[in-house]
């Protein structure tokens, strides 16, 4: 097995927080701002940030086709803005999404910043031991998903984390908490059977 190298798309957003979590797990990780950097990775995290900004920069740096290819062969995890970017369908044409997972996503679906919230929830499919602290910042909502997609957790009956074979999405921000279980799931467990 090739050794793991986690890329963190560093065009805009809280990529530094994801890097910190990879460092804590002792996993090699690099910031990705070009196709060359992307091709050195086995995994890619698309962080939270502004999906319109990240989308424009992806296109500007000619990374769209490479990202689509990467998303078919290797592991991608999109958090918040990242979830919007990997979705098959988005309610807003300002974002050019990559279409890597069969989900329909609505941007800023909970409202403005004053509606951003923190809650706690069990996510037994990720790790059954303790509740997760889930931080939602101007978060998107996963409205619909296809047969190839498995939801892995809910808040008020809305799926907040889901996956297909190799693409993971979450509408909350595990990178803003000290909890490493989500990163550990993505890096070490995604490759195994569901």
């Amino acid at each position, binding site marked *: 097995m090739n050794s793991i190298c986690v890329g963190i798309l*560093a*065009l*805009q*957003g*809280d*990529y*530094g*927080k994801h890097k910190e979590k990879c460092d804590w797990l002792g996993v090699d990780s690099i910031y990705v*701002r070009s196709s060359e950097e992307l091709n050195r990775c086995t995994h890619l995290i698309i962080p*939270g*940030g*502004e999906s*319109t*900004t990240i989308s*424009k*920069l992806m296109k*500007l740096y000619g990374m769209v086709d490479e990202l689509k290819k990467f998303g078919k062969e290797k592991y991608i995890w999109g958090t*918040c*803005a990242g979830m919007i970017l990997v979705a098959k369908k988005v309610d*807003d044409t*300002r974002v050019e999404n990559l279409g890597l997972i069969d989900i329909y996503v609505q*941007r*800023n679906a909970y*409202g*403005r*910043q*004053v*509606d*951003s*919230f*923190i*809650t706690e929830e069990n996510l037994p499919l990720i790790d059954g031991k303790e509740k997760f602290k889930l*931080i939602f*910042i*101007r978060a998107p909502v996963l409205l619909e998903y296809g047969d190839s997609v498995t939801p892995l957790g809910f808040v008020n009956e809305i799926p907040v984390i889901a996956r297909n074979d190799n693409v993971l999405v979450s509408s909350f*921000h595990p990178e*803003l908490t000290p909890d490493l279980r989500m990163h550990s799931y993505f890096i070490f467990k995604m490759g195994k059977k569901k």
Partner: protein
Amino acid sequence: MEKGSFEVKVGLAEMLKGGVIMDITNPEQAKIAEDSGAVAVMALEKIPADIRKSGGIARMADPEIIMRIQKIVSIPVMAKCRIGHFAEAQILEALGVDFVDESEVLTPADEQNHVDKHKFKVPFVCGARSLGEALRRIGEGAALIRTKGEAGSGNIVEAVRHMRLVMSEIRKLTVLGNEELMAEAKRLGAPYELVKKVAKLGKLPVPNFAAGGVATPADASLMMQLGAEAVFVGSGIFKSEDPPQRAKAIVEATTNFDKPEILAKVSSGLKEAMEGIDIHEIPAEQQMQVRGW
């Protein structure tokens, strides 16, 4: 379910990292900013260079304009209130703005006290010229700190001065012994608990952005290399000859702040930057940075 907590407020500031927040005065400019890759827009009545020129009292923007801007863009909308003017802040919160900038660019409403920002659900950003000032604002509840620089000057020198001082004072704290921290808190005029926290973290407990005088892609890169985590651009975009072109170039420069080849490319062939002012030509009483403490 918890809303409006300090952690949720800082969360949005985290999402803005590596991005450019642009000053705008109407929905058309807001659209240009979003199309150019801004991570947020800052709504105000006049941009700082025009405030400086016209004089008089500068106040919060008209709520109607703010609401029109909120309708047209999907990125966060920020707006400025006067220092200490908590009623303006309450109005902005009621409008659902995503961030309030308690800003020295507007005419202060209270020369003694800043807004008690803990009382609000909306997050606040405040300007600072030193670590003590940054920690006083965080003590009052600010979720994001930016340099003051000298707004509307087109001159980066003051933002550099403020960022260098803040970073240097942070570095100093990390090497002091525990017993020296109270004396340092006294010298800085900063809350002791926050001084201890910074000494331990080696950075501010909230994100730290640059503002005040950014006019070129190189200015944005300079501030990022000095430790800023994102950049506010005030007059630098809409006072330049070709705002969309300059806006896009500054966005790219902020993402690739450490790649000189890309900076060279995006800096090439840009139309005229805004006209700048030498800081020594601005009389002390007309400097915006001395407002607030």
